[in-house]
């Protein structure tokens, strides 16, 4: 165990030092845009902890109280998958900084693609919800 931990930690520390040197290469001399990049790196965990995780908590609690037990797992899974699909679609839908479409690239219809993908996910949720299942076994107590 000790050897395994050392074999992980030493290359890990070396990679961290190398990454810090490469980042310093980019960051120095300091310019205003470097602070933007640093804010991006630090900001993402803050957004997760202050926004995404509390939303997950509230949505999870609400769904597990509202949705009937047989539907709970499929509905929560469908909601999670929908949220991730929206994240994946975001850079395709929000494009003030995007390149213009080229032939064969970004010239599709991501809104339609997102809608169809989400519809498929919820079709599977419904199938999972209505599928016949065994009665729960008696637990003895």
């Amino acid at each position: 165990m000790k050897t395994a931990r050392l074999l992980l930690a030493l290359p890990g520390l070396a990679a961290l030092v190398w990454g810090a040197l490469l980042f310093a290469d980019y960051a120095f001399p300091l310019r205003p845009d470097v602070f933007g990049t640093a804010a991006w790196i630090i900001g993402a965990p803050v957004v997760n902890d202050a926004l995404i995780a509390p939303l997950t908590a509230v949505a999870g609690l609400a769904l597990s109280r509202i949705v009937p037990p047989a539907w709970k797992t499929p509905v929560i899974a469908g909601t999670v998958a929908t949220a991730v699909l929206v994240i994946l679609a975001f850079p395709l839908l929000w494009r003030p900084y995007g390149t213009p479409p080229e032939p064969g690239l970004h010239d599709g219809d991501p809104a339609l693609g997102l809608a169809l993908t989400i519809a498929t996910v919820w079709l599977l949720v419904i199938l999972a919800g209505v599928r016949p299942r065994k009665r729960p076994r008696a637990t003895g107590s």
Partner: protein
Amino acid sequence: MLIPKEEHFKAAAHSERVTSRIGLALAVTFTVCFLTGLISHLIQHPPSWFFWPSRPVGLYRVTQGLHVISGIASIPLLLAKLWSVYPKLFGRPLVKSLPHALERLSILVLSGSAFFELSTGLLNVAQNYPWNFYFPQVHYAVAWLAIGSILVHIAVKLPIVRRALTRTPEAGPPSTGLSRRGFLRTTWLTAGVAVVATAGATVPLLRNVSGLSWRTNKGTQGLPVNRTAAAAGVQRADADWRLAVNSRTFSLAELRQLPQTTAELPIACVEGWSQSAVWRGVSLPMLLKAVGSEPGTALRVSSLERSGLYGVSVLPGEHTADDLTLLALELNGEVLDLDHGFPCRIIAPNRPGVLQTKWVTKLEAL
């Protein structure tokens, strides 16, 4: 404001076993993503010791496809992992000791760099750049921070991982949320959905399945165009156009009179799409022999494109000795479209798309 305490989180999602399982999956996807990204970086900025073969022809297509797929899969995995350990954020005291403080700081570096890699990577495949830095440089630097902090994190947590995965799980207190198994299955399923929804950009079988693929089937001559001639500031070459190969020059008609080779080769873009196509043109070993040069000599390839970073590329000897490396004149049975590099372009097996230089005007032995 009501701030929860660590013990308020009772759901099975927060158990050590769940954290460890998702953590291991993330370790796999991040390692794959890091190594495949490193390969791509080394091909584009080869140090003297580095060697990249010209076969199998689709190897780079596979490594680059894995890079994007493992990155996409990591997005739900990272969110699930951070949700699993979220209660620890509310652990008190905030800092117990110096090692504890260092550990918390290392986790900030870990999640910051991991989020940065995934978010910038996702925006980059969408060619969406809401930032002011040069993406390859910073994405590469932060990749080392991410993989380094992951390795250190696993080293720190290894005893917990072992404990969590070897002990039979105790039945936790009943909670209203998902069961442990339900949470894990939801995580794997969501990662699967994310991959299926996007991987059609590079996996032919999913081409018409992935609703969120950033490439479509509307490319010119059946192939996406990453940079049009107009964007590159290139005009259609006229009858006076000549290709210079060392001290010799060739007109387009003369190139067409040389023996032609047909090959099916993929274009695999660093931005995570790939597409196979049938190319026809003069093989590089043939062309080099025609000018009295040896196949296996590295070549500098210059384009009519003057602006931009990719107007000049270096084709290593390994590739100039391969009969499948072509100076292509035709694509999918038609004369090369201007957007695909008319009058001629390089198409070499197992190379990143950005190095398949278009609108070639000069080849020089190095």
